[in-house]
């Protein structure tokens, strides 16, 4: 494998001043290999600050054009600097990395995302023949049209009610949960916990994409440990970067 030097095709804010950006990278190799739910590990700059790469989920790939898109929000120094990267810059990217979502396209599926956690669900939706989307946001929505193109129906909730249902997206999911055999979810821990609970109660299969701080991104450093439960109740740590970031919901132990 190689880390790729990819050209930035586009890097622009999707929201007005809310700090949500989309970056499109040119990479035939990554576009070709990418599976929904995998991530890329981006080196922000050639210096020592920030030192570590930043893991960002693949949002969408265009295999014909050989491009990969990611959506990120400005959280700290790394993503802030990423947002200032100009078109045509050559970025050093590792990927695609990790284990994505299993594609159970013959079942009735829903993708349930919260905030920036909606990002990886688009490529997933594109790869499922029939699925509904449940997308929750705080106060600004993005990429809705893209989901509308790929999903049967798209449910939106915002905490401030500015778009769609006013409240949490899990409320909408709960109403319709009987319609699904499989649910895929990514978003804040609290949200994913609720989704997992709803699915368990309704005996719906569920897959979650989890976030852990990462070092190597490929399974060598063991900093990204994710607690998983065995059938027999014993737990141990798996690697979020290599065994995940997607896990079967019944495996994951949501601590604290």
């Amino acid at each position, binding site marked *: *494998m*190689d*880390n790729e030097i990819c050209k930035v095709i586009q890097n622009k804010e999707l929201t007005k001043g809310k700090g949500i950006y989309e970056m499109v990278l040119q990479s035939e190799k990554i576009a070709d290999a990418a599976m929904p739910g995998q991530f890329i590990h981006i*080196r922000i700059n050639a210096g*020592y*600050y*920030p*030192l*570590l*790469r930043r893991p960002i989920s693949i949002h969408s790939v265009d295999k014909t054009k050989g491009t990969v898109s990611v959506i990120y929000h400005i959280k700290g120094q790394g993503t802030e600097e990423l947002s200032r990267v100009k078109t045509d810059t050559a970025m050093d990217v*590792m990927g695609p990395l990790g284990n994505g979502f299993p594609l159970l396209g013959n079942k009735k599926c829903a993708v349930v995302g919260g905030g920036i956690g909606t990002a990886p669900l688009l490529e997933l939706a594109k790869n499922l023949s029939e699925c509904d989307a449940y997308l929750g946001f705080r106060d600004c929505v993005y990429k809705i049209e893209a989901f509308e193109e790929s999903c049967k129906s798209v449910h939106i909730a915002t905490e401030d009610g500015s778009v769609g249902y006013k409240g949490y997206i899990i409320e909408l999911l709960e109403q319709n949960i009987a319609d699904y055999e499989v649910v895929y979810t990514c978003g804040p821990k609290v949200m994913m916990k609720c989704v997992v609970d709803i699915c368990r109660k309704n005996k719906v299969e569920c897959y979650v994409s989890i976030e*852990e*701080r*990462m*070092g*190597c*991104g*490929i*399974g*060598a*450093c*063991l*900093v*990204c*440990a*994710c607690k998983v439960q065995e059938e027999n109740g014993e737990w*141990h*740590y798996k690697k979020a970067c*290599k065994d995940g970031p997607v896990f079967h919901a019944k495996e994951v132990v949501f*601590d604290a």
Partner: protein
Amino acid sequence: MLNMEVKIGSLKLKNPIMTASGTYGFGKEYGEYYDLSKLGAVVVKGLTLKPREGNKTPRIAETPAGILNSVGLQNPGVDAFLEQDLPYLRTYDTAVIANIAGNTVEEYCEMAEKLGSQVDAIELNISCPNVKEGGVAFGTKCDSVYSITKSVKQHCRVPLIVKLSPNVRDIVEIALAAEEAGADCLSLINTLLGMAIDINCRKPILANVVGGLSGPAVKPVAVRMVYQVAKEVKIPVIGMGGISSWQDAVEFIIAGADAVAIGTYNFVNPKAPVEVLEGVLGYMEKNHYQMLSDFKGKVVL
């Protein structure tokens, strides 16, 4: 012909470029990025007698030009390593060095016995800041360094490397204690104990509160310690701490290191060890050095 060979006790390495324990798993992952046979040696993740789950997450924090980690020796245990991980590494033409950590002197000895001569050398980790028992407690006092080295040496069928902690007052006195006790080689530095706090929630970023600092930030401390130690001991020294380029590797070798290891920078550049190797080669060619000893330890004062 340029000769990059290094001798560590009875072990001969084809070149001085190694990987640092805990940053490189058991080699498999980086084996997808390049041919591990290029390396002088692979040092594997710290092993314990029984499998260990390690600390809670977050286990990593970023600091200026460095990182803090508190993995806490997550590993499958020495038996599983021998069964499941060593065979992969043995498909390559590179030395395999096992890094071992224990709670008691007996555990260290037992591990050395189990490893026997299945690995090419054993690195005694008595400097891990991330475990309560053992670890760093053994490595920061002369008498305990002496006695644990002496004991393990008796059970060790391959060259014994003692890995030193930088969290000490006088690194030379610790180094001399290890040498006197029979160490075949010293490696330094392990991580500096550090801490970072998230000012928004007032929580330490690491679940374990404190962790080990590594990366470019620590390089000046590491170079100084290698310099001080290499002057005083007769056994070879493996230098590490913040190496990110061939220039850094050359700096450690000039300071007195016989070999160098790349740790944290593997995360930044998965091919760092190979690029360092190529760069050191280029440096030697440019300066018409035939072998490492032409510039090793040759600080001009």
